[in-house]
């Protein structure tokens, strides 16, 4: 009994980490956008869906292999993210925040139902892009998809950290996020920085979308709603606006979810995600890695 418990625990931990790295990739986009313009971009989950579909069409119709398809999907999503920002969010930069939020909801609905119209609401089977190898260690099973998901996520996160911490545009992003007005005074083109932030966030979401397609073999136009919401919870858990926080939050989220569905019941999986959200908001609203900001008069 005790033996199998440990095994199941490790098994769920592995499942959780691979699921969590997908949440982390989506959460990064949420957190970056929130950090920079204080907008909960509800359309982000749908960009993840678009990424999955682009990858699907790239692999089935254009017969691309895994990596080219990944790059195509990320590029298309980046362009889409920038377009959305340009058309829907930029004109509202000085409007009340709730107006932008409603616009984001509108964009989200547009992507979902536009997607349904274009690609039909039926789920599609995502092609197997490489042979599934199953590694077994005792009773613990790890398949090659999980390894690929984790590897790609880690690589993308390293690239992102490098871009944000070491390059000029990354510096500009941090400056805008710290104080938009001061950044503007220092000669930073704020609109361009915001645009690039959307591009990067969307590209990461698209990568997550493709990885989910590979993992679950099935995609549909509404697939972005729940993961989007959960990734957002992950971003809040880690501390919204904090990039390492999104990664940590995503992984924790994935692990908790896997544990709940493994040990309690999968119907409570979604409730667990939101319960974490409420607890973190009540105990430490700034998130695990967030800084406390004092209220100024």
């Amino acid at each position: 009994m005790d033996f199998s418990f440990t095994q199941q625990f490790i098994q769920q931990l592995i499942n959780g980490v691979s699921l969590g790295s997908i949440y982390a990739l989506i959460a990064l986009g949420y957190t970056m956008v929130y950090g920079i313009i204080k907008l909960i971009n509800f359309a982000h989950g749908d960009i993840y869906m678009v990424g999955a579909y682009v990858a699907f069409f790239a692999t089935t119709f254009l017969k691309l292999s895994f990596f080219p398809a990944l790059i195509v999907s990320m590029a298309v999503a980046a362009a889409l993210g920038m377009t959305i920002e340009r058309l829907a969010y930029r004109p509202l930069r000085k409007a009340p925040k709730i107006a932008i939020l409603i616009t984001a909801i509108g964009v989200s609905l547009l992507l979902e139902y536009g997607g349904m119209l274009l690609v039909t609401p039926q789920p599609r089977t995502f092609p197997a892009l490489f042979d599934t190898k199953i590694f077994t260690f005792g009773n613990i099973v790890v398949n090659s998809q999980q390894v690929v998901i984790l590897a790609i996520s880690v690589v993308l996160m390293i690239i992102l950290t490098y871009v944000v911490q070491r390059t000029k545009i990354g510096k500009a992003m941090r400056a805008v996020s710290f104080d938009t007005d001061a950044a503007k005074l220092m000669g930073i083109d704020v609109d361009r920085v915001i645009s690039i932030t959307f591009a990067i966030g969307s590209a990461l979401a698209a990568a997550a979308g493709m990885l989910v397609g590979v993992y679950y073999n099935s995609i549909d136009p509404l697939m972005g709603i729940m993961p989007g919401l959960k990734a957002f919870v992950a971003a809040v858990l880690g501390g919204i606006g904090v990039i390492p926080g999104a990664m940590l939050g995503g992984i924790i989220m994935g692990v908790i979810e896997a544990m709940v569905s493994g040990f309690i019941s999968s119907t409570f999986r979604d409730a667990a995600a939101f319960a974490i959200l409420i607890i973190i908001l009540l105990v430490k609203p700034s998130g695990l890695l967030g800084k406390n900001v004092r209220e100024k008069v």
Partner: protein
Amino acid sequence: MGNNKKELLSLVACIAFYAIVQGLIMLDIIGPFWELNLILICINVILAVSLNLINGFTGQFSIGHAGFMAVGAYFGAVLTVKLQLPFIVAILGGAAAAGFLGFVIGLPTLRLDGDYLAIATLGLGEIIRITILNIPYVGGASGFMGIPRFSNFTWVFFATVFTVFFIRNFINSTHGRACISIRENQIAAEAMGIDTTKYKVLAFTIGAAFAGIAGTLFSHYFYIAHPASFTFMKSFDILTIVVLGGLGSISGSITAAILLTFVSAALAGYPEWRMIIYSLMLIVLMLYRPQGLFGNKEMSLKIFGRLMGGNKRGNTQGN
């Protein structure tokens, strides 16, 4: 005194309107399709006006209204179906249950500000829904079926009138002004000796209770209460109505509820285009009128001076 007369006049106008519509329904000039839409409009008005009390007047950003609606829908249905109680008891019970839950939830969460409160209410709304989904007593994932159709135009219309009058009078009372002062500037309100937590929780509880009424009316019209009807998308729908009409404008909420329900009904023949047109309309309206159709002004009264973006920006630029 003049105020009382005006109040009476609007009540008479409501009754006259009711008599005309009810007459048209009885004469079958308004068929079942439009009757359904009239009922949906009324339910949406209740939901929007009650959410407006929380979001628009008290300035607390809540996006979990569908959760309270779900509580009302299910609790009311339990009262009528399982306990065989009369409909009015179900309505009051639904309101009490949702209001109580609003109180319990509001007490801890209303300490949060702005976006954090929004996220927390969103999460709570989903938790309520998932909890209901896991209670076999009320049907679980397949929904609570076999609810009698007690709601009709008379019930729904008078519930709506009651909601609008109640919330309008609440806002014009001392308590309401306290709520508005919290919206305008919480710290200043606190400095003036207003117990901000008390009024925030009060507004939240009242808003939740009316959402419960709307829920009970909803489930007793459609024979069924299903968890899928109360997802966060439903909360967004209500929020959309409130923002579209204008935060802090009751007449705005009513107008937007009518407008959006009609748009939705008019597009019912093109199911695949419906949500696309709806979402495009939402985006375009927000781009050109971010403060909502009415801003924070009422149709006739101009009680509240300046708050929303356009106005405020004009002022600061002027300075």
